[in-house]
Structures are given as C-alpha cells and as structure tokens.
C-alpha cells in the first residue's frame, strides 16, 4: 500500500480574515492508501481548512500565507490548480444544497466528467455506476431540489465520485441530515471503504469515528492526537478540550471505574456480561406528571396541506402543551415537525382544526402581538440577522412593537445576559461565530419576553461545546418559567434536556410522553427510524431510569 496523502509541516493563515491567527499550524500527517480517517474538533479548529488544503482550494481559492508541503498521490497540492487536483481528490463540501445546481440528477453527475473531457459513452457509464452506487439510480430524471436531505447529500457524493478520484474528502457530510439521511450517507461511506478508497470524513459524532483506521483530533489549528479510535476516543479530557463529545459508553465505564473502554453499546453489553458488572433489570419509568399546570397551547385535530402539494403535511394532530414544559419534537425530515411548530405561532394556518394560545385561536392574534406570546427561533440564524450591531438586532422586535428606547435598552441587556452575550452590544453580528450568532438569534426572540419559545434545530451545525452551552442556556430559560419547545434530530439532546418527547411520523404524532418513557420504546421509535442515544440504549438494557450520564452513574453505584 502506498501513501495517499502526506502532509509536512503545513501552516496556513487566511488573508482578509478577521484575525491574523493561523488557521492551521504545523500540521503533519500521513494517510495510507485505502484507509479511513475521521477528523474531529471544535468549531474553528481548522478541519475545513485542512480539507481545502487537500484539493488546493487552499491556497488557490482562499489566499493566504502558506508554508509546508502537501502531497496527494504524487502531486504537490501547493503547485497545482484546483481543477487539476479534482482528478486526485474529490471534495464534498459541508453545504450540500449549495453544491447542486443542475436541473436533473443525471446532469449533476455528468458535470464533473464533462470537465474532464470524457467521451459521452464514458460519462453515461459513470452516471449509471455512481448513481447506482449511492442508490439513486431510480431518480435519474428527478430535479435535485425535489430530493430529501439524505438523497441530496448522496447526489453530491455521486457527483464528486464520478470524477473517480482515489481520495474522497467529506466535510461534515451528515451534519444537516436527519437520522435516516445520516444512516444513508454512512452506508455509502462504508461501501467506499470496502472498495479500498482513501476516505477522510469530518464529523462531530463519536459513533462515526468508531470504525475509522485513524482519528485526527484537532484543536486551534493543530492536530493534537492522531491514532486508532480505541486510543483517541477513550482519552476523555483530551476530547473534552477539543470540543468533541466523548462516547457515552466510555464515559460511563470510566466514571464507574469498570474495566474496559467500550466504544459501542454492543461492546459495553458484552463487557458487562463478561465481567458481571451489573445485572439487567426490567425498566421502571418514573411518572412525573405535568398535568396540574394550565394548558398554554392546544392543537385541536389539525390537518394541514401545503398549497403546492397534495399530501397532508399534518393529519389529525392533537397536542396539549402546558405552561413551563420542556418539549422535544423529533422525527425524520418531512414528518411534519416544523410544520407543526409553525402552527404554534400562526406562521401557518391549519387547513382544518384549530390552534389555541391560552384558549384563544392563534389565527386571530396579530403578527406584532404573537412575537410576545410565542417566540420562534429559526434553524439558521443567518436567515434573520440583518443589523449592524447586536444591540439593534436583539432590539428589533421591541422596536417593531413600538416600545420606548429605555425599555428596549433594558430588555436587550436582559436578553443578552440570559444567552451569555453581555458586553456584545456593539459587536457586528455577522462577524460572530456560528454558536454566537445562534445565541443572538435566540436573544432577539427572547427580548420580546414570550412565554413560549420554539427553537428549530437549535444545536445543528454547532460543535459539542456550543451544543452544550446552547442547551444549558435553554435549561436556564426553562427554569425561569418559560415553556421551551425544540425540534431536534439529536437524540442525546432530546434525552438529556427535554421533559417530554413528541415523536412524529408522516404528519401524525406517533408517540408522546415523558422523555425516559418515550426512549424506552425502542420498537415504536424504530417505526419513525429513530434510535435512543447510546447511553439510553444501554440504560434500556440495564433497566436504569436516568436520562443523563450522572444519573445513570449514581443509579448503578446505588445498586
């Protein structure tokens, strides 16, 4: 086996960046042909930059100070143009939506081979081969825009594979996907491995890294650890310092002082059985009732049909939300989560049925007033940030409501304090990090002091550290008496923070109950193609009723 990628003392500093801090510092690394490398690290650690450095986007597309040497399959990257590198390195960018631009699936795949000046029958062959490879052969004539997230990402992969590069690099290929889409993409990655292709993937989820040949752990532009997953993923303090979520099974075993470092639930169960560490018991779910509290939002038998589509996006949905609840709505894309949430603040009006806020139909509440009753934070903060300063951004809804300057000032300060951004008033929101922009978006909704706050995918695209602090902030909000509703694909987030979980499938509510009880029903969840997070899968087997690592540890100690 030869060396596919060799990186020698690579440093890079972006020109025209906010800071003059190097994005990459003295990177060294070597990847054997046919191996699988997973890169992990916090936001801004330099993972994307390193990906770009492999196909010459750094330093050709992004200019800057470049030292060191990167060689991919005999070609020195620093001396090649991006188009030349495309024969050796395929790069699937993080934002798959932005990569698709053709009007049909087959033409999307044809684009790369066309650039390589391949004859028509060869292009035809590659379209066939790679669409079949990613499982989209039936979709040849479809419009890419009409595909699901997972399908789009697989199409993006096929369109890069069609150039037949020996090395494939994927920058967070699963971040924006629902669990099914994630599974689909990881299956493709698996097949690629079996074909002995060199594969580099950037990912946040430790479960992806379990099968890797090597993990590269990055922090502040440096590679701080390089090695097999069993070594890197078990060094919890190091993972923590890189903003990477540690595998919860390892964390559990270390906390209890149990022998072994199981990376997966299966390994953990095997280790427990082998060493007789604990006896599985039937699970008893504590019933914490919220029934006493007054109902704040009520969805009564709602159907909804989008004007341009024939299918019901919601059908016969009934939901009672009580004051001060913390609810997670989970389900695949297209299951109706966002559609349901948009009914709660009147952005969508039910085709049939009614939504009530404190007994009053939401459709009758004025736009400017609804912002003060039910706040809604959209998934992407960049869809709403427009102002020159954080102060102006956060005060926007108050200004719209016609409040005086002094009240606005006070409320903005308060909202910024809640999200942990005090002192950021004069900052330009666009220059903040993604996690901070997300907080600005939350603050701008909070400033109106809505009783209910809905967040669509509050942790998507954030690294583990930012996910934690975002969720801690929501927990604090919840403690202050707010009703918090999140839509999420992240099962551990739902498990650890929500009191109640609503599972949606095909526009209906499949399951609705206290978090622990919901996650105990693995079979029902599987119907919605969902799986409890590893800790709770293990907990379901062991019969522990805790939702967080600390609770489970305590419970097992007490046994």
């Amino acid at each position, binding site marked *: 086996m030869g060396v596919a990628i060799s990186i020698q003392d690579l440093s890079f500093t972006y020109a025209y960046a906010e800071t003059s801090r190097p994005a990459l510092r003295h990177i060294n690394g070597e990847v054997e042909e046919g191996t699988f490398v997973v890169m992990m690290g916090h936001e801004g650690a330099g993972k994307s930059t390193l990906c770009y450095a492999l196909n010459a986007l750094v330093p050709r597309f992004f200019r800057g100070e470049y030292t060191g040497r990167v060689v991919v399959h005999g070609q020195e990257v620093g001396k090649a143009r991006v188009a030349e590198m495309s024969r050796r390195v395929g790069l699937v960018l993080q934002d798959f939506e932005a990569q698709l631009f053709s009007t049909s699936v087959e033409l999307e795949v044809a684009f790369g081979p066309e650039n390589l000046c391949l004859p028509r029958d060869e292009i035809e062959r590659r379209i066939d081969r790679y669409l079949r490879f990613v499982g989209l052969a039936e979709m040849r004539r479809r419009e890419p825009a009409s595909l699901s997230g997972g399908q789009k990402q697989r199409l993006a992969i096929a369109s890069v594979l069609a150039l037949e590069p020996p090395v494939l690099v994927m920058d967070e290929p699963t971040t924006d996907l629902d669990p099914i889409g994630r599974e689909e993409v990881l299956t493709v990655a698996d097949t690629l491995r079996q074909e002995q292709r060199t594969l580099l993937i950037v990912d946040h989820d430790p479960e992806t890294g379990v099968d890797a040949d090597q993990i590269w752990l990055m922090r502040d532009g440096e590679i701080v650890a390089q090695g097999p997953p069993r070594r890197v993923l078990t060094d919890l303090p190091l993972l923590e310092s890189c903003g990477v979520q540690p595998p919860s099974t390892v964390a559990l075993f270390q906390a209890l002082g149990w022998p072994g470092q199981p990376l997966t639930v299966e390994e953990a169960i095997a280790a427990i059985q082998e060493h007789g560490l604990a006896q599985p018991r039937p699970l008893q779910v504590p019933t914490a009732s919220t029934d006493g509290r007054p109902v704040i939002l009520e969805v009564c038998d709602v159907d909804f049909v989008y004007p341009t589509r024939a299918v019901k996006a919601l059908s016969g949905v009934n939901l009672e939300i009580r004051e001060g609840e913390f609810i997670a709505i989970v389900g695949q894309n297209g299951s109706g989560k966002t559609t349901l949430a948009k009914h709660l603040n009147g952005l969508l009006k039910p085709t049939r049925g009614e939504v009530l806020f404190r007994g009053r139909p939401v459709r009758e509440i004025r736009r400017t007033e609804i912002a003060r009753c039910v706040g809604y934070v959209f998934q992407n903060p960049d*869809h709403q*940030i427009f102002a020159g300063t954080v102060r102006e951004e956060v005060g926007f809804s108050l200004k719209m409501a016609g409040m005086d300057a002094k009240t606005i000032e006070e409320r903005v300060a308060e909202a910024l304090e809640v999200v942990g951004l005090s002192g950021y008033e004069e900052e330009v929101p666009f220059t903040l990090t993604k996690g901070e922009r997300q907080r600005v978006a939350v603050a701008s909704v909070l400033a109106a002091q809505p009783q209910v706050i809905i967040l669509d995918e509050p942790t998507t695209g954030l690294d583990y550290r930012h996910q934690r602090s975002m969720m801690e902030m929501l927990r604090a909000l919840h403690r202050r008496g707010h009703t918090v509703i999140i839509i999420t694909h992240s099962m551990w987030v739902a498990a650890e923070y929500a009191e109640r979980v609503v599972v949606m499938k095909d526009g209906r509510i499949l399951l609705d109950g206290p978090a622990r009880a919901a996650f105990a029903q693995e079979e029902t969840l599987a119907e919605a193609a969902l799986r409890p997070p590893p800790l709770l899968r293990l907990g379901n087997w062991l019969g522990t009723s805790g939702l967080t690592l600390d609770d489970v540890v305590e419970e097992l100690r007490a046994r």
Partner: protein
Amino acid sequence: MNIFLYLDEDTWFHRLDPRTKIIGVVLLFGVALVFNHPLYMAGIALGLVLLAAAAKALPNFWRMRYILILLVVFSTVLWPFFAEGPTVLWSWGPLEVSRESLMYAIAMGLRLASFVAAGLIFLSTTTNEEFTHGLIRLKLPYPVAFAFSTALRLVPTFAGAGATIVQAQISRGLDVESGNIFQRAGKFIPLAVPLFIYAVRHTNMLAMALESKGFNPGAKRTWYLNPQMRRADYLVLALLTALFLGALFLRLRGYGAVLPRL
C-alpha cells in the same frame, strides 16, 4: 415552491433539438409581429394553443392563466387611446376611440399573449441545460452561457431562502403589510440584508464546489447532452420559415392589418 416551468413529458416537441426550439420561438415571435388584425392574431393564438396541447404544455397555460388574461384585458382597454383610426366610435376631449383602434387593441392583446404562449411552450419543453446547450451550439461562448444558466438556476434557490427569511422576520414581529410607502420600504432592510448575505455565501460555496469538480470555464470540455438535428428539426424549421415568409408576404400585400401604418 417551483418556479420552473419545465414539464418532463416525452412528446415530439420535447425531442426537438434545442436549437430548433430557440430559432422556432424567434420565428413564431416574428409571425406574431407581422399582423395586427384581431382575426389573424386569433388564428395565431389558436395555433399556439393547439401546439401547446401537442407539447403537453397546457398545464402551464392554466398556471399562467391570470397573466394571459390580464395581458389581453389591459391591452384591449389601454391601446385604443394610443392608436388612431378613421372610424371614430366615441370621443371625449382629446381622447377618442375608433373602431380600428379597438380592433388593433384586441390584436395587440392577442399578440402579447402569443409571445407569452410561445415562450411558455418553449420553457415547458426545454430544460435549463438544453437551453444553455442550444445557445452554445448557436455559438454563444461557454462562460456566457454557463453564467446565464446558473443565474436562472439560482432564482428558485434564492426565492426559497427569501421565503424563509420573511417567515423568520414575521415571527419577530416584522409587519410588512402596514404603514405608508416609506415605512414599508424601511421594512425591507431586515429582509434584504440576510438575503444578500445568503446569496454571497451561497455563490461562494457554489464556486468552490464547481472548481472542486474540475470546472474551468476557459478549458475544453465534453457534453453529456448530445442533441442532434434530425429530419423533424429541419422539417419544423422549414415549416416555420415558410409560415413567417408567407405571413410577411400577405402583410406586404395588405392583408392582416387594421391599421396598416402601425
């Protein structure tokens, strides 16, 4: 939201070479420009409807029905005041409506509708890439054609992002529907800024993706699409050319015009 009009059917019209379709539409425009008699124009409009039926493009006519009707109605109401004819029907001060100007107006309405109809048939049967490819085969430089088709392609993407942005700001209490015109104009800033930034980010990403797939606008490349001029294409072009020349001939002989000087 789908603002593209392409209908994925398999008719003889869909199978024509994009060059034929582009030239054909231009010829049809020409034919519609020749006459200004409502009866002749009605004939042309009817012909286009039949053509649309053959090309299975009628669903798009239905989708665009309001635009088509508005064009005819507005034109019929407004044109009489701007064209002068000998037989005055009604006059008030400097305003007058003549029999001829009224007929001319109807013809103009039909002409506009015919333009739209011809365009609709074209867009219903031609994908963005085929159109671009047709332009390239007609000797338009590739970078120009590519920029053109990418711009077209990005419209629905930006429209989708725009819709999300509107919802996000409405949820924060932005009320776009009230206020006078200046207040309303000010309210577009919270919509325009995020959209602009989105567009910059998006196009930057797209540029990176294109380069990563070996795109080089100046270099040689091959094509997967490979439309061929077949017998049907030549036949259609010959027919349309004959139709156009015949129309021109008729008009020069004095037929098909209510107001010959216009």
